[in-house]
């Protein structure tokens, strides 16, 4: 099932959308936390899946991200959007998971006896992504697969805008180098 979700949204829209339940969620009310979870679980899971490449790892990372988010919600001051804040937690979790254990992608399971060129290319990209550093992997996934703007990436990774651009540039270079070595 190919799920594409609309990533770009303004902070004002998020504030309008979330102000009704965010206060209740900060107070730890179960119904508001459930609303929070239902709103963002698909996005967080997609991000984790694209970062980690395995459904089980993505599920673990999603769960841990929400556990941390539920615990930190009372301290969330709203300086960034809820989604950006949650993405930050999820990215940190996925990156630490990549660092702590060698995560192997099971996206290659779809390979058949005679894979199509498009599939071969996709598998090569996913394989190469496992070779780049976790930080570079995160910035590439956020930019190209999650469709975040530079400003949003800077906010999620808690770095400046020029640093986000430079990190993406370096990540692209590293990816390109690994990709060409693999071919």
């Amino acid at each position, binding site marked *: 099932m190919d799920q594409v979700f609309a990533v770009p949204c303004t902070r004002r829209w998020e504030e309008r959308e979330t102000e009704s339940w965010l206060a209740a969620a900060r107070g730890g009310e*179960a119904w508001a936390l459930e609303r929070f979870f*239902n709103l963002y679980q698909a996005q967080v899971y997609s991000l984790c899946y694209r970062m980690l490449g395995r459904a089980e790892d993505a599920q673990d990372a999603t769960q841990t991200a*929400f556990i941390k988010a*539920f615990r930190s919600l009372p301290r969330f001051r709203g300086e960034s959007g809820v989604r950006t804040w949650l993405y930050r937690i999820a990215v940190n979790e996925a990156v630490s998971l990549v660092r702590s254990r060698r995560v192997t992608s099971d996206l290659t399971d779809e390979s058949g006896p005679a894979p199509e060129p498009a599939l071969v290319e996709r598998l090569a990209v996913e394989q190469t992504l496992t070779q780049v550093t976790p930080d570079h992997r995160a910035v590439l996934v956020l930019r190209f697969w999650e469709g975040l703007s530079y400003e949003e990436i800077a906010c999620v990774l808690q770095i400046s805008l020029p640093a986000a651009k430079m990190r993406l540039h370096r990540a*692209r270079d590293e990816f*390109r180098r690994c990709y060409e070595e693999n071919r």
Partner: protein
Amino acid sequence: MTRGCRSQRAVLAYHDGSLPVAAQKRLELHLRKCARCTSELARLEETDALFSRCRPSVSLLAPDQAQELFREALLRSGAGVQPTRFGGWRWRWQAAALVLAVAASGALAIRMSGRNPVETAAGPVENPSTLTAVGPKFDEPTLSAHVVQVKHRHGSAGVARHYRGRRGLRFAHRFTTRSRRLVHRPAKDAPTVELLPSTPLDDALEPQLMVSVTRLQPLVNLIVTHSQAEVPGFARAEALEITPTGKQIVTAVTVSTCLPESQEATPEQQDQDQSDLEDQEERGDEQH
């Protein structure tokens, strides 16, 4: 473009579309002359196109998986105080007032009666609060087995036997000693566990677990959850007590559908237990 080429940042900015119009035109002129910058720009565009083509599709979690994940996250985070009854800080004042009222009434009762209050693991109970919660439906048919195991948070283990009383299918909570001799009274502050059958009593498909706890300290919420254990045929349930501090979540009871074989009761024991329980229930009805 080499490391020394001054247009490196300009090429990146041009690629991002963030270059001012004048600088954009200057760079386009430069690109006509500089093969390296042109090839670098082509590489950037190619890499971006490659990622766009290879965006992996994601099979999202099924609704029941997502629900399970939420429950687990809620349980492990310690959040989820249900609070429609208590808004903001008001519940803290109410909880403090309730504690004071319970303490005052307890002291008054001791002075007037001269007797010691009932002792429980949580302390003397004069005016305990009781909460009852019903868990989600079990889709585990083997829960209709006649024995469930109950483990209390203080480490005492007990056996709840399934019997059919006048009020339907029930689990009565009772405790065993090490010599497997049944003790016909529940632990002092043990939760009461009851299985609510879904439809016909004979096949308790999708039953729900109802748990009641009685505590001296006020409880804000009681959440009953269950999860499928790794071994087929087993189901485990947990009841969480949430106190007004909102921080202390206590695993009150764990229920599983099976016992080690050594603890299984014989059919004669089961018949005896059932008759004992029915007698006990009748005595309780008479008292009421």
